[in-house]
């Protein structure tokens, strides 16, 4: 007994140590990159956000002044409000479309399913800059195709780039870009559902709608949560699309149209890097809070 226990005792620690070193070695590249490319810049940005630099007078430590300014900054709050509105309208539409496409493809009833799948996914492969330039041209009030058609029909041209339409026009571009991407995630999740479940359901007399509602949708919940989470982050960071459309509609999209655009213009137009760091932090915080709230409700529903 005594010998076995000591043997066991002497045996276990070295093995654990081995695992430990191997583990450390495995995660070391990640940790190094994480520290270098994520935590260090984040820490530095946090440090910067505590200062204020002026063209005349240089840099001074101001503590949390930038944060109190930012929380009362109407331009920032308006930008955040605008992306929140964008999120509330665009994301449900996009995810519902993605869900419909995924279910349709998974049903096996579509002809040319591969071509359709690729067709819906292709816009995601188009860089968002190019996609926006393309849509910007399509939206054109004089020589864009929609305007031309209306002109030929003697109808007033639609004002896609006017103040009241702009958010919708942006939502359309983003939806066009990301429906395919979300569809692929949902479709992949559907493919993991074992076929036996469908057979069992069919034996119990469930039709296609019933199977979709009672088997496919519940199984999709984690994937939907994931796509929703990506959409939260994507919406609140909205940048490329408005910054490019700003060129064709400078009277509608100003430099604080979205919170991220505001951070950019504060940094590179006003050259207030410190305040830009603050704005970025607050935007990051908003994203964390919204994401966390979604995860919490999603989890609660799943456990309930």
């Amino acid at each position, binding site marked *: 007994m005594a010998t076995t226990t000591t043997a066991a005792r002497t045996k276990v620690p070295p093995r654990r140590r081995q695992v430990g070193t191997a583990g450390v070695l495995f995660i070391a590249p990640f940790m190094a990159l994480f520290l270098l490319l994520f935590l260090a*810049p*984040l820490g530095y940005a946090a440090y910067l956000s505590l200062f204020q630099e002026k063209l005349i007078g240089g840099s001074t430590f101001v503590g949390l002044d930038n944060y109190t300014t930012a929380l009362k900054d109407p331009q920032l709050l308006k930008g955040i409000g605008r992306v929140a509105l964008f999120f509330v309208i665009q994301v449900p539409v996009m995810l519902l479309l993605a869900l419909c496409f995924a279910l349709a493809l998974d049903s096996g009833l579509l002809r040319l399913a591969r071509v359709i799948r690729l067709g819906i996914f292709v816009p995601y492969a188009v860089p968002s800059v190019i996609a926006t330039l393309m849509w910007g041209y399509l939206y054109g009030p004089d020589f864009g195709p929609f305007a031309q058609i209306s002109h030929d029909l003697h109808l007033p041209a639609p004002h896609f780039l006017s103040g009241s339409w702009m958010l919708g026009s942006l939502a359309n571009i983003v939806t066009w870009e990301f429906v395919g991407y979300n569809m692929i995630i949902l479709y992949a999740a559907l493919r993991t559902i074992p076929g036996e479940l469908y057979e069992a359901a069919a034996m119990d007399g469930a039709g296609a709608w019933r199977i979709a509602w009672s088997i496919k949708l519940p199984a999709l919940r984690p994937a939907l949560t994931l796509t929703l989470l990506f959409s939260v982050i994507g919406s609140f960071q909205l940048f490329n699309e408005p910054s490019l459309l700003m060129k064709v509609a400078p009277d509608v999209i100003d430099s604080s149209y979205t919170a991220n655009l505001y951070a950019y213009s504060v940094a590179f137009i006003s050259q207030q890097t410190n305040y830009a760091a603050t704005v970025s932090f607050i935007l990051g915080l908003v994203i964390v809070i919204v994401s966390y709230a979604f995860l919490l409700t999603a989890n609660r529903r799943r456990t309930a």
Partner: protein
Amino acid sequence: MSGTFSNSPSSLSRRGFLAATGAVSLGAALTACGGDSGSTSGSSSKPVGQADIDKAMKTPTQLTFWTWVPNIDKEVALFEKKYPAVKVKVVNAGQGTPQYTKLRTALKANSGAPDMVQIEFQAIPTFTITDSLLDLRPYGASALKSTFVDWTWGQVSGSKGEVWAIPQDTGPMGMLYRKDIFDRHGIQVPTTWDEFAAAARKLHKADPDVYLTNLAANQVAAWHGLLWQAGAKPYVTSGKSDITVSVDDAVSQKLGQYWGTLAKDGVIGVEPDFTDSWYAALNKGKYATWLTGAWGPAFLSGSAKATSGKWRAAPLPQWDAAKPSSGNWGGSTTAVIRSTKNPIQAAVFAQFLNSDPTSAKMFATEQFFFPATKTLLGEASFLGDAPAFYGGQKVNQVFADISAQVDPAFQWPPFLDRVATDWTETVGKSLADKTDTVRALGSWQSRITTFAKSQGFTVKGG
């Protein structure tokens, strides 16, 4: 033709800025920008002796030059031929604002900045305020004063006589117009702004699809050119931290009233320029004139090919026909970054590139730049050029005459990017939305004032 395009300051920079925004990661950029430059090193203004210059030019040196001028290698090769020991690496770091953004980042990081840099006239003060440019006087730049058109020298000179850059090309403003459209509607080429306004109303009434001109609601550079012509002094800096801002004074209000009314009455276009739609509009004859810099003729002949032979050039309409004047839109210079380890070679390069007769001429013939040197502006072969696009008119002659009428005293603010954005969001917006432009001038004024104060400036004027 994209070469001449690079001379249109704000349009160009905005396009570049937009292209770059996709690539710039904000977080990374922020952290890179954070360092305190504190570069106090630099040259004294004591002249450098000819012996030192000769010695330096024979020392093997590698210089880096940031520029967006296409095919500038040809001009650089001339320099390298004359000074075989000095090698120049040409880097395209973006056009206009994207390049300035990269440069500011490099300057703050104290690493990666070039020795020489392409810089537009209006951007010079935004770099002298941060002490980033080298005063070129000790390297013999003052001797070049008479080489260049007077007003360009005013643009590159500091308040204490410093020479911050060497002019490369310019953009005195004139009017390109569609002779065929004018003829069809019996419109005389307007010589005063009153005639111009009358023509705008007449033309649009005769053909609702055609406008006399387009004043782009995002083109602050054109607005500045028109302010310049009208004799405005919107920004006057004295000392380092004193600035007088008067973008809302009587002259500006006259301009605001004039253009605001034309825009509100819908007899001129206000669409953003250098967009697909705008190019299409020029090709399809939606606009009968383009008020533009001297780089405009070459640019237009490349981008509105469909209208060849129909265009002509004329001076801008005048406020006071007895005292013809013009402003400038575009043009750029070569400056030397203060942190360079080889100030002599870099300064000699900047001077050679733009003042050597062969090199300067090459800019006019290869890149179709509008010259900044007096010699070229008086040269028969340049003035005699009669492109078919303008029906054989001697367009260069028209703009060379205009160049002599540009006021040398116009100044730029040390935070131009912010001023430009604020213009688009106030005055430009009022033009596009057909609201009160004169009132928008007030908002522009107060936005600039607030910003300048927050940056530690003492602001006067109004």
